[in-house]
């Protein structure tokens, strides 16, 4: 994964939000990252640290809310916690599920002044 692209996008989103709300300093950024979003968190942190210099994010605390993966079996409708991107339903033993949470990759909110 190219966490740099994601970090760049996060900086843009935060800057736009701050500007729209006439904020001059960002104190905290809350991210929601699903366990199946395919993001390497340490790499994302490193990317953000290097990109935030000279931006409104410098010094802001980056909080990451991890969203657990939940799969919905397409065959029997059972909801379960998948181990990975593909897993067997514990109820009916079949492959094929829709991931209903765990792929999130979003900026939830910012705290700014």
């Amino acid at each position: 994964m190219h966490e740099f692209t994601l970090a760049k996008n996060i900086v843009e989103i935060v800057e736009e939000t701050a500007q729209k709300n006439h904020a001059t300093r960002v104190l905290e950024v809350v991210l929601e990252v699903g366990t199946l979003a395919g993001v390497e968190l340490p790499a994302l942190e490193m990317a953000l640290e290097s990109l935030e210099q000279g931006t409104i994010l410098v010094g802001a605390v980056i909080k990451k809310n991890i969203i657990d993966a939940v799969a919905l079996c397409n065959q029997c409708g059972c909801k379960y916690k998948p181990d990975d991107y593909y897993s067997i339903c514990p109820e009916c033993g079949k492959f094929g599920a829709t991931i209903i949470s765990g792929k999130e990759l979003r900026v939830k909110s910012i705290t700014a002044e």
Partner: protein
Amino acid sequence: MCDTCGCSSGQDEFTLHTLSKEEPHNHEHHHHANEHHDHIQANKKVIPVETDILAKNNLLAERNRGFFEAKKIIAINLVSSPGSGKTTLLERLILVLKTTHQIYVIEGDQQTMSDAKRIEATGVKVVQINTGSGCHLDAHMVNHAVKALEPEDNSILLIENVGNLVCPALFDLGEEKRIVIASTTEGEDKPLKYPNIFQSANLCVLNKIDLLPYLDFDLTVFKENLQKVKPGMPLIELSAKSGEGLTKLIEYLESLLVL
């Protein structure tokens, strides 16, 4: 900066090459820090954002999609690892398809115009995107490339993504269908190792079946692995070199035009 490791080599830069006498144009975005000097007492507040980090790309992808729909252009995003035979497959496909349809091609690579030149030799209009240090095509690049191509209505647009089984998975280009190309020389485990990209695709093509007699590749295991990752995923086995199985892919593409 390099998308993967952050080394400075030009942020957000890609080069679009048309195969005419035009100079290639570089496309650069420079992000400048906002500098506000607001002396009014400000209050600390929590501002909800609720924005997908890939929202911008997705929005532009939908714009591309709208353009394609309006002009009845079938856009196909071809993804695979480097060396799977994407370009050879395209060359073979184009030679057949161009007799009945207008074809346009977008080539994506980090460097060189090799692939675009190969496609140009088939007689169709092509543009080459060089991503520099970038590892995938995105909707923004495709948007520019489509404007350079000026495709006609009722045509087929084939987008050959940067050879990479990881990054292109996340980037919607606005395509109608995404085809993931695996090859027999890569081993049966690729769907399991790169589930994201296989799940994101609508069709899997297994290339280089002409080499099966010389390899330990287990076709049954490959099919099982594919079905584990994306149950119901259709598979077309073919050889771009010998032409075997090519008609099935042509039929698949033509069925999209009818819809």
